[in-house]
């Protein structure tokens, strides 16, 4: 993918896309949080919202959405917050890895997750 498409974006355009909102409760959206659309786009919707709903008919990670929209991660997170607040998307929350890890204060993922990753990698 061409980098120039994003690099030519001006802050003014990003400001317009997000409606000038300064901050959102974006913590729910990790780079690899999986997003699923819960409804079809409706006429008159902001075009970025429409595109997100279409591409998330199957689960899609936040970082993939950002790449497809050619928008920075932080802007993508704000758009996703809009859709989450409106009940138009849901996220599949990690059950064992990041969340559990942080609550225990350990810098490591759970051994069960790591074992599953190892099994998958060995099959490559």
């Amino acid at each position, binding site marked *: 993918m061409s980098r120039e498409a994003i690099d030519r974006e001006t802050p003014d355009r990003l400001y317009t896309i997000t409606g000038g909102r300064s901050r959102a409760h974006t913590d729910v959206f990790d780079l690899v949080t999986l997003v699923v659309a819960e409804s079809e786009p409706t006429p008159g919707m902001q075009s970025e919202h429409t595109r997100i709903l279409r591409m998330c008919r199957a689960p899609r990670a936040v970082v993939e959405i950002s790449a497809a929209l050619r928008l920075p991660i932080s802007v993508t997170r704000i758009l996703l917050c809009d859709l989450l607040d409106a009940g138009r998307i849901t996220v599949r929350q990690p059950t064992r890895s990041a969340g559990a890890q942080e609550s225990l204060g350990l810098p490591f993922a759970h051994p069960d997750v790591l074992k599953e*990753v190892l099994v998958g990698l060995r099959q490559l």
Partner: protein
Amino acid sequence: MGSASSSPGRPAAAEEPEPEVAPLRSTVREGVKIVIVGGFGVGKTTMVRSVSEIRPLSTEEVMTEAGVGIDDVAGVRGKNTTTVAFDFGRISLDEHLVLYLFGAPGQERFWFLWDRLFAGTLGAVVLLDTRRVEDSWYAIDRLEHHNMPFVVARNNFGQPTHTLEEVRDALSLDPGVPLVDCDARRRESSRDVLITLVQHVYALSSAAYGAMAGAAS
């Protein structure tokens, strides 16, 4: 197959193509991430490409002097903003778990974004550029600062001029940190680096969780 059978009622035409990347399986529940850190030209994207099931994509985060993100972009319209770009690829590990691999630049400004982008990362691969060892020193220092487990891989596709032991000495690398040779162009070689990393993290994690369970009983 997948999309057609899972959405029989949807109109098939009259939509802009969205997007060109193959979708994940509908059963996928959880994404995990590994970061490959290295200087420009050392082979990060090559490594991502060699094991990824999709052509590597790229995206970016926006940063200003004051901080990171659109809030700052909105607040300092007209002032200089800078961006940090990174590549990524994807490996579906099983029906529930998908691994995302990120190729990230090791330069200074990148590390300001670490917590925002890469908190919860399983581990990191430092891809070593033997011509610029000092770049790797910095990456290793930052990973240690963030308590991020890592391995070091030398992307080596010629006759090595130094032994791995010499490299370990030059990096002052802890004896507990794995250091391996690889050829990032080769899928099996890149996969083996990832396996080395996850085995290393697994050993650390098992010990830490075991100690916690022992203390609780």
